[in-house]
């Protein structure tokens, strides 16, 4: 089972990205779930969403404490939340930032996970969608870092969800797929 945690701010669509991911996995015929961390919903406040994907039925409805993948939708979250919490040595930390991975490690130390992927999702989303809503952009980097769901199915779900504004989101997702930086480990 693959477990994911999404960190964003209320209104950035963290829950929607978890949802699209789960729906894509379910459409493929396997099992998935997505849910928000349940709390007062306030625009701009730090929010967390979770997703699980598995070949087997999923029977755990508790918060994800040991995610395989963490996505950080907003660069400013790194300063206030330890988003790497619970990431195992092979865990992947996907971060929306203008900084390089080396700069992030210098600034945040072990609050950056063992395997980092970075992208300037704000910039991409602003250019392609016209707003800094980064949720679909971040999914592009996720698809690059893992092959947990099929890109075609995800794009199909994105079209269903966003209708006529889907195009910008799809362009943004594709650009993120191409432009994200994946850390090369020594050895």
């Amino acid at each position: 089972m693959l477990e994911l945690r999404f960190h964003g701010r209320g209104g950035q669509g963290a829950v929607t990205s978890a949802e699209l991911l789960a729906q894509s996995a379910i459409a493929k015929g396997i099992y998935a779930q997505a849910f928000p961390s349940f709390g007062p919903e306030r625009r701009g406040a730090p929010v967390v969403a979770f997703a699980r994907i598995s070949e087997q039925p999923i029977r755990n409805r508790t918060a994800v404490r040991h995610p395989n993948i963490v996505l950080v939708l907003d660069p400013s979250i790194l300063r206030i939340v330890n988003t790497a919490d619970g990431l195992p040595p092979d865990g992947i930390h996907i971060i929306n930032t203008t900084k390089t991975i080396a700069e992030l490690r210098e600034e945040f130390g072990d609050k950056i996970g063992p395997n980092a992927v970075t992208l300037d999702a704000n910039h991409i989303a602003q250019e392609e969608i016209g707003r800094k809503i980064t949720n679909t952009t971040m999914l592009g980097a996720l698809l690059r870092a893992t092959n947990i769901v099929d890109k075609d199915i995800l794009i199909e779900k994105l079209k269903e969800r966003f209708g006529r504004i889907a195009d910008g989101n799809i362009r943004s997702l594709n650009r993120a797929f191409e432009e994200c930086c994946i850390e090369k480990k020594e050895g």
Partner: protein
Amino acid sequence: MSVRRGVEVSIAVAEAAGFCDVDVVAAYPITPQTHIVEHLASLVADGHLDAEFVPVESEHAAMSACCGSAAAGARTFTATSSQGLALMHEVLFIAAALRLPMVMVVANRALSGPINIWNDHSDIMTERDVGWIALFAENGQEATDLVPICHRISEDPRVQLPVMLNFDGFIVSHMIEPIEQLSKEEIKTFLPDFAPVQRLDIDNPFTMGPVGMPNVYTEAKMAGEHAIRASYEPIVEIFKDFGDKFGRYYNPVESYRTDGADIIFVMMGAITETAMTWVDAQRDAGTKVGIVRFRLWRPLPADDFKKAVAGAKVLAILDRHFSPGGPGGPVAQEVKYTLYGTDNAPKIVEVVVGLGGRDVFPEDFDDIYKRAEAVLNGAPVPPFELTQVRGGHYGKI
């Protein structure tokens, strides 16, 4: 033809109510609510569902409007949670006493205070004695399937009682998960048109809900008691018919890996799923432990339960609510009532878990198992305990 898709459980439940072709939905749409009534409001507003959506001024009014609509012979649906259910309290008794068929979905959430609308069973357990049939679903598929089942139970001429369908707030209600949704056509083959046994009719006037003087009140209560007890047979029959039609069989009490189990965990709702994962690991390690869950809560399926736990030496009972200063949690109380005086009755270890949205993780079952195991090995039975109390102690009462 049913479709498998990833959908929020509340939305799937609302669609199921829509496919049941409900006539009236009366609800109060503010926290604590779920997307159930919001989605039904959309279905009505967008013309997908030919029903009257009554946005009332409070939950008390919601239940009152539901009573009126059911009395007029309309298929009636509502949903609520937490404080909303509490605000309905006095009207719930009336719906049952007037034998009004309707279905209410309750996404179980805590009662304040401190102010808390997260998941536990304190809302429903304080409404235990209202005279409604009550069921508990464990996941989204079951919750969605139980919507037409509850309408059919409620409207069965042998039953004619309101039915409450419970499922855990947030951890089920707000979860996006795979659900095979029955189509409207499929539901139509299972749920006949509502044919009320009696309804308010200006051409044939009669009084519904008159004063029950001391000379008839006891008889009226006895009649209600007969009705809810007699609903057991139709409920089992309707579960079976659903299974025969759609392949998913439901029972009043469910057992999971209880063969030869010395210790059986007893609980209701979604934490049963977490417990199954834990039990699988225990069984792999050779530990004889299983789970029994109540799906039907009212009428209490006492005989099914006795059969399900026969042979167990210790029951570990998990409650999501308790009676302060009283005899512990409601599930434990009722199990003790059920087993008292029976031969070879198992010993009972009672714990209260998952209050006000606290997650129940698989390792929480390890702690509870240790206490049950100690009793199995001869330790005295401890009084009921609040578990998961911060600081690592068990908050022994």
